[in-house]
């Protein structure tokens, strides 16, 4: 049995590699097309650019694995971002500011979760409503104006480096590692998958499914606010319309990474691969100086090709 289970692990590993086919293919193609692409500097550049979407997409992965969706991440990002900026410019202690900024996002996520779990409403519409509300609150709080004028120390989060590596990239990988462990190694993570696979059976197994569901939306809100804060720091300004449309990019990263929107299947590593595909695509189209209208066509086409390759490489059953 051990020999066999090892064999199956190898098969699994191969399947995972295959889900990276699109990524590797893209990297190879880009390296040929542009001399600027495969440089340390540019790769650093890409990972830094990807980090915002990746952090959102990590949270989105939790939600999607339970079979839900979170459309509010972009607005929650903006709300946390302006609140953090606003409080900071009012001179509040920076630690407290961060706690409040992240707290607000987590709270909205929690609210999403409560409405989905206890209210038994469809996550799509709940988070669509929340997306609209959070955007409104952001505009009200900021009076529609960007907020700037930050502490030098705050800028470290978005623009700093440690050992030459950009801080957002470090944050992204740290969150990736923690999320990986949570999803693969803790009971909570296992329940996330179980709910996506069969919610009823999970409930009958004695698991408080409501709590888990509330948890995943809270995590998504939490991560959205973290990325909002990184973004504000990176831009040195909190934008009230930041994050518009980011939910679609985050979902695209998750799906490109091989996670099924039906829930129960997929994982965080794929999500990062998906986010990288999108990031490389954006970077590459710029490097190649593809004109903006054609960029849209190219981007859409590459997404379709990547997902097509990935689907092909998965065993049909």
């Amino acid at each position, binding site marked *: 049995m051990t020999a066999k289970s090892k064999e199956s692990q190898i098969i699994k590993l191969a399947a995972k590699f295959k889900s990276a086919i699109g990524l590797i293919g893209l990297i190879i193609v880009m390296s040929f097309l542009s001399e600027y692409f495969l440089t340390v500097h540019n790769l650093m550049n890409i990972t830094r650019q990807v980090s915002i979407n990746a952090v959102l997409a990590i949270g989105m992965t939790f939600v999607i694995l339970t079979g839900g969706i979170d459309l509010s991440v972009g607005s929650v990002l903006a709300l946390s971002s302006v609140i953090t900026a606003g409080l900071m410019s009012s001179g509040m202690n920076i630690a407290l500011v961060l706690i409040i900024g992240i707290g607000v996002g987590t709270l909205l996520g929690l609210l999403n979760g409560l409405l989905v779990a206890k209210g038994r409403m469809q996550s799509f519409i709940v988070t669509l409503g929340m997306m609209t509300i959070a955007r409104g609150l952001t505009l009200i709080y900021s009076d529609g104006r960007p907020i700037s004028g930050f502490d030098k120390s705050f800028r470290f989060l978005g623009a700093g480096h440690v050992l030459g590596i950009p801080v957002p990239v470090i944050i992204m990988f740290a969150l990736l590692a923690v999320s990986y462990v949570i999803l693969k190694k803790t009971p909570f993570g296992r329940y996330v998958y179980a709910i996506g696979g069969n919610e009823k059976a999970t409930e009958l197994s004695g698991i408080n499914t409501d709590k888990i569901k509330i948890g995943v939306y809270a995590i998504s809100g939490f991560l959205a606010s973290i990325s909002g804060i990184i973004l504000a720091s990176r831009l*040195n300004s909190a934008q009230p319309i930041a994050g518009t449309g980011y939910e679609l990019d985050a979902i695209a990263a998750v799906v490109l990474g091989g996670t099924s929107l039906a829930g129960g299947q997929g994982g965080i590593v794929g999500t990062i691969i998906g986010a990288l595909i999108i990031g490389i695509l954006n970077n590459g189209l710029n490097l190649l100086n593809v004109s*903006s209208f054609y960029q849209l066509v190219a981007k859409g086409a590459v997404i379709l090709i990547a997902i097509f390759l990935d689907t092909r490489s998965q065993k049909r059953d």
Partner: protein
Amino acid sequence: KDGAKDDGKLKIGFAVSTQNNPFFVDMKNGLEAKAEELGFEVLTVDAQDDAAKQLSSIEDLIMKGIDVLVVNPVDGDAVVTAIESANNSNIPVITVDRGANGGEVTAHIASDNVAGGVMAADFIAEKINKAGKVVELEGIAGTSAARDRGKGFNQGIDKYDSIEVVASQPADFNRAKGMTVMENILQSQREIDAVFAHNDSMALGAMEAIEGAGRDIIIVGFDAIDDAVQAVKDGKIAATVAQQPSLIGEIAVETAQKIANEEVVEEFIKVPLKLVK
């Protein structure tokens, strides 16, 4: 600074805020045409109105070793980081249409949106004999154009005691929205003398709504896009505040050339606004 000009061609990076509006398409076309005329290379990136995307794509431009950066910021504060990156790579920066609130900008080329708002207010006041009810159609909440034009317009109107802004509603710079929002406002406001829209797309939408309702209202738009200029000629809208996007683009290229040749350039190059009426 001549190292980058190894092939003798000036390489201009142009970061435009969005292409979702003829105004910017004109600006881009003006810029690209001028560059071609002068034999320069232009690398254009489009931020789709997303400040973070703009930052990323400017980083990409810097990667490609541009000689001059021309940026039309999505937002004046958010663009600072990008400008600083360019500064660090010794790439001179020109801002167009919208300004930056930091970093080292060699030249800023723009028309003044606040002034344009005031201009529209004064024109309307004159048309309605300094008394009456006006409606404001706002652009996308949170964008600088909406902010500045609204600010200028309201400052302008405040000067006239007998003019009242009876409704101020967002229609997102969008023609379809301009139409529906105006239709709705027409339901609740039985008396409207004039409408100011933050751009022409909304003004043209409002025009359709007003025509459909068979009412007679003075309309003022902003941008002077082709359709709007035609509508002014046809007497369907009263005026549009003309920016000269194509000229902004052209001047940007000329300025870039001067900078590359180490000539002295003005810090703020104002492109005149004019009222097309």
